[in-house]
């Protein structure tokens, strides 16, 4: 059934054109000399220069990066523990509530999550800033991490852990030496997911960031609301290229690893 009919070819071409043309236009126009975003007036990199001199954007980018690194790391630790508890923890009191709290933030509208966290921070008198954004981002991204990690935990053979325990490992050693290496790919992709979710978030950050800390999405949003600006095109192009290079590298690395693993397995079979 692998017929590549004209219908399939056309729908794929149109579909991918729809997905990518807007971003391509954005990249092309970031090199536009003119201040008008829609009129081409020759090649220029001046908007990149202006962007690099704009301290407000650079500061916001730095805050965003800090928040993303801290929150995704904490989310990975908490989310992995939560996944382990969900899959291996057996029965405990309030298990249903726990799994409900893991899945609910995934579908909760961001405006509600943001509003509720802000009201909490005000209620306990916590000053809003980088710290509160990190708390907020950790909370929603740990749920994504635990979903990714638990799907990997479910699919691997529990007897490996039991064998390690029988051979004299403590539970902590069994986790560190057996479980963790097996679920490592899921943990890493959970971290990456949490990292990009944090970089991308506008709504929750707007609620939980005080006047002292502004993230890049908040900055972009307020700039864009005033109209289309060529500096934002340059910034978008930089972000799109980082993501593209990152994703392509990651997929090449995984491809390479899969190939190596297959070779090793074949060698083991032969031996």
């Amino acid at each position, binding site marked *: 059934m692998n*017929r590549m009919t004209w219908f399939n070819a056309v729908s794929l071409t149109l*579909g991918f054109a729809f997905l990518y043309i807007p971003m391509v236009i954005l990249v092309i126009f970031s090199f536009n000399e003119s201040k008008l975003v*829609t009129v081409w007036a020759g090649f220029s990199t001046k908007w990149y220069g202006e962007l690099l001199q704009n301290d407000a954007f650079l500061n916001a980018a730095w805050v965003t990066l800090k928040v993303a690194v801290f929150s995704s790391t904490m989310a990975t630790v908490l989310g992995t523990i939560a996944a382990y*508890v969900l899959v291996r923890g057996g029965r405990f009191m309030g298990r249903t509530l*726990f799994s409900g709290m893991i899945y609910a933030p995934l579908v909760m509208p961001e405006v509600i999550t943001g509003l*509720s966290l802000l009201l*909490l921070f005000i209620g306990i008198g916590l000053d809003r800033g980088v710290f509160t954004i990190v708390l907020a981002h950790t*909370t929603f991204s740990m749920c994504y991490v635990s979903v990714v990690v638990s799907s990997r935990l479910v699919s691997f053979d529990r007897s490996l852990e039991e064998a390690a325990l029988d051979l004299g490992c403590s539970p902590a050693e069994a986790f560190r030496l057996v479980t963790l290496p097996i679920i490592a790919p899921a943990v890493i992709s959970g971290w990456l997911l949490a990292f990009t979710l944090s970089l991308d978030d*506008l709504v929750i950050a707007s609620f939980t960031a005080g006047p002292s800390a502004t993230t890049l999405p908040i900055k972009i949003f307020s700039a*864009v609301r005033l109209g289309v600006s060529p500096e934002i095109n340059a910034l978008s192009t930089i972000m799109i290229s980082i993501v593209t290079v990152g994703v392509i590298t990651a997929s090449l690395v995984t491809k390479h690893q899969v190939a190596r693993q297959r070779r090793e397995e074949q060698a083991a079979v032969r031996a």
Partner: protein
Amino acid sequence: MRRFVLIAIPYAWLLALFLVPFAIVLKISLSDYAVSIPPYVPQFDWAEGISAFLAELDFENFIWLTEDDLYWKAYLSSLKIAAISTFLTLLAGYPIAYGMARAPEEWRPTLMMLVILPFWTSFLIRVYAWMGILSNEGFLNQFLMWLGVISEPLTILNTNSAVYIGIIYTYLPFMILPVYSALERLDGSLIEAAEDLGCSRLTAFWLVTVPLSKNGIVAGCFLVFIPVLGEFVIPSLLGGSDTLMIGKVLWEEFFSNRDWPVASAVAVVLLLLLIIPIVLFQRNQQKQQEAEQ
């Protein structure tokens, strides 16, 4: 003991930063508005005790939501926009997923990566890209005028049509992926059997392919419908003053009017509205998992 600590850490975190905040929203939605910081009157006073607290609770803010037609119009229009754009996303996404599932096997990982790549690119930037395309002097109008289809620019930006385009664009991968995974698992010989038994290609598609991909379609529709209902970024960047969506109303109630009790009440009602599709979605996922086992 160790097990208890392990369970307690994520549990306590989620209780403190997910459940408690939500209880606070519920509480504030029942409070009164006040000109102060924070702008509401707390209803709970430890000195007076719980009975006094319960006696003072009122549903004033919720009654207000039914009296001012802005709110129920915003809920209805969010439901309408979410429903229509889910349908349009399905129309746009199904052929792409179908084409992917029928593509040669060695292409599929690459096609899959091309669908996922936009996920990793900033949502805000993808919406922003459309502002330049849809504006009066934008790319789309220039292109249509060059083709000679129209003689003067259409107003698309700041209308509901722009919101639909933005939603379809940003949520398309959420539709393509589940539909694709349903179609990829589909046994091709079933379609061949239908064609051998005299079905035309099109009837085979309707009678065999579509019903067998139902699970993917349902999952994709929920994955688009649920988040779109509370959407804020797309209507505020692409929509106009007549675009009413409840996420935007909540935002403005909170940041511009500073009426926290009403904003909280808006959030509570939005959540009640979402509970039905979320429960249905979970049931569907469960059924699918059971079917696979």
